[in-house]
């Protein structure tokens, strides 16, 4: 067991001989290097860094339609937008809903991806290409079209899910009309829509595990469950980190599913942070306040990502 853990940790480090100080090391090559990096750096600066800086500045003002008409109507308000945000009831509702979605939907999505990847990776599976395409299809279909179809599936009277439930002897559920069930319905759709992407990444991860490890474990007398637990999972560590972080970042940006299916309802039960931002920014045109919401979402996502990286490092160590 220890050998496996060691091999995975050494394969993870890029240059084991040098101390890892990439962040502090200065560039010492010829100046022509800057010319090669220049175009990319310039594009990033103009299209990425500058808008972020502008957005941060905007979040410290009360930019709105009045300011759009006349710059004299723009006020610097410091952290007022953030304070107002923290005092607004809707922010907490949206935060609660978003965290609910991330905490339940994220792990479910990763689990579904891993399960599908394992099934497809199995030597017993036939028609792998077909299944892979079928599972990946939801990822590449337009979300709005999918959401409209799913709204039919969730329909109280004529929906497929309720038909199945009543056939099995359960009470029909008002999926999108009941505040209790609306979020689970949205989560279910999001998981179905997204698991194919992570499945592909997991499959790549599974294929890169050397078969010798499994053979060695088998010789040592490990059954399928122990092989999965002690070989597959540790070897998928870096893949897990990547999948976990990207999935979480994506799930924090919950917007299109409730926007199309429920408009944040019923009773604000699917109202997300990004919806709050959209509503403030593009419906009421309070761009200053909306920028503050955007910055808050960014800070939350960053914090959650760092936490996840730290947890996985600790688990890996």
């Amino acid at each position, binding site marked *: 067991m220890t050998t496996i853990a060691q091999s995975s940790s050494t394969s993870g480090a890029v240059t084991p001989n040098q101390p890892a100080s990439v962040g502090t090391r200065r560039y010492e090559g010829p100046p022509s290097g800057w010319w090669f990096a220049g175009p990319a750096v310039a594009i990033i600066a103009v299209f990425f860094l500058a808008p972020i800086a502008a957005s941060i500045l905007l979040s410290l003002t*009360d930019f709105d*339609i*009045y300011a*759009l*008409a*006349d710059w004299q109507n723009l006020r610097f308000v410091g952290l007022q937008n953030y304070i107002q945000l923290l005092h607004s009831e809707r922010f907490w509702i949206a935060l609660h809903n978003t965290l609910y979605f991330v905490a339940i939907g994220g792990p479910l999505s990763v689990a579904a991806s891993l399960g599908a990847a394992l099934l497809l990776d199995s030597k017993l599976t036939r028609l792998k290409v077909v299944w892979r395409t079928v599972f990946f299809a939801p990822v590449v279909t337009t979300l709005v079209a999918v959401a409209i179809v799913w709204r039919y599936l969730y329909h109280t*009277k004529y929906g497929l899910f309720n038909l199945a439930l009543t056939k099995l002897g359960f009470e029909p559920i008002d999926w999108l*009309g009941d505040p209790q069930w609306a979020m689970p319905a949205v989560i279910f759709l999001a998981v179905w829509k997204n698991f194919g992407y992570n499945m592909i990444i997991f499959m790549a991860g599974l294929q890169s595990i050397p078969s010798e490890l499994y053979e060695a474990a088998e010789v040592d007398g490990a059954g399928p469950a122990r092989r999965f637990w002690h070989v597959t999972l540790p070897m998928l560590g870096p893949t897990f980190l990547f999948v976990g972080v990207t999935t979480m970042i994506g799930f924090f940006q919950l917007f299109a599913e409730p926007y199309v299916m429920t408009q944040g309802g*019923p009773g604000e039960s699917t109202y997300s942070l990004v919806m709050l931002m959209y509503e403030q920014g593009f419906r*009421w045109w309070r761009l200053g306040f909306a920028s503050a919401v955007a910055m808050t979402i960014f800070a939350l996502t960053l914090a959650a990502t760092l936490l996840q990286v730290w947890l996985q490092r600790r688990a890996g160590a």
Partner: protein
Amino acid sequence: MTLIRLTENHRQRCATAIWSLAAVVMAIASVSGCGEAQETKTVVNFWAMGAEGERALPLIEEFEAAHPEIVVRVQQVPWNAAHEKLLTAFAGNSLPDVCQLGNTWIAEFDALGALTDLTDRVAASEQAGKIEPDDFFPGVWQGNVIGKRVCGLPWYVDARLLFVRTDILAQAGHAELPRTWDDWLEAMRDVQAIQPAGSYAMLAPTNEFETPVILGMQAGADMLREDGRYGDFSSEAFRRAFEFYVGIFREGLAPKDSNSMISNVVQEFERGTFAFYVTGPWNVQGFRDRLPPSLEGKWTTCPWPSPDDSWPGVAIAGGSSLVMFENASDERRQDAAWQLLEFLAQPRQQVRFTECTGNLPPGAKAWETSGMRSDPLFAGFYKQLQNVRPVPPAPEWEHIVTGELVKRADAAINGRQTVDEALAELDQRVDEILEKRRWILDRQARVQQ
């Protein structure tokens, strides 16, 4: 020209290539020639929303036939993207010359300084006997006047009122349509008494702000005070209306969760799931087409009851206006744009527009000539339009009612808050929204001093 000369120098070498090139050049020349010919005409850009953009095209063709020097480019904008698109166009200085604008947006775009003041042009046109401002319903016209400036011309109107199943009402012992709130409440109670379980006296979707606002107007509430500086929802008048509104749901006369419960309004109306339904003119034709013949004469449109003896009670003046945007376009374009506005706002074109779209005309004359007034289902609207009023002219109005009023009403209806708590919180939230407006108005007042 240079290109052609160049090709002629090389004619000997490759004649076929030259011919084809010449053909291309000629094509380009002829296309650009077309463009030049068009340049002598004045182009007016016109944005129209939703179905109007398509159905109004015959009128635009008539206008172009009557004004050969003007070309109108119509762009259709879907309603749900219109507001965003207009604001973006304003920010990017690419607004059209003429635009259809929802009545409730006029104040907002006036606050942006985007609208052309039409006062002088309207006065001149009135003297020339073209536009007749007095012919428009007063409440509708008022919505196009901000301060003393005319900012738009009414294009079509709508007003919410009650669709009523008169047969159910008669069964419950009410042969007459209700004219006061007391009559109405009594009628609803009597209807509810004979309705089976799962059916109601009224349907008023709780996600629509119009019903509580209309009832508030009827009770005499202004809803905003001091020129839109503060919310005034806790006033005695609005409180009375709000209590009446919330009471309808709490008493079980209307369903609380109507948004998700009713999937097909026409079907439920036919079944008699409710006897009163708050809706607007856009539903008349649909109901007429889809309800079975057996229901003919068993339903009608009913102007709002009133809290006192003055019938009908007031309703919101809805609909769309035509405006001109104050952008960089030159004098000639502005004149051409005005001619289009003037053309569309005259009674004769109002009739044509009604024929094309089914929308309600904004002036009384067009109601007479189009025959709408004698249509039994539209007669209720004609009566109602005598008493309509615009919503308060604050740009924040839509945010206030759709963002806050609806939520507090929902809280009161479902018993999470008392009426007083809900209204106090509503005023507090509205005051927060209006903070910027107060600051700007106060600064303007200081500058003027």
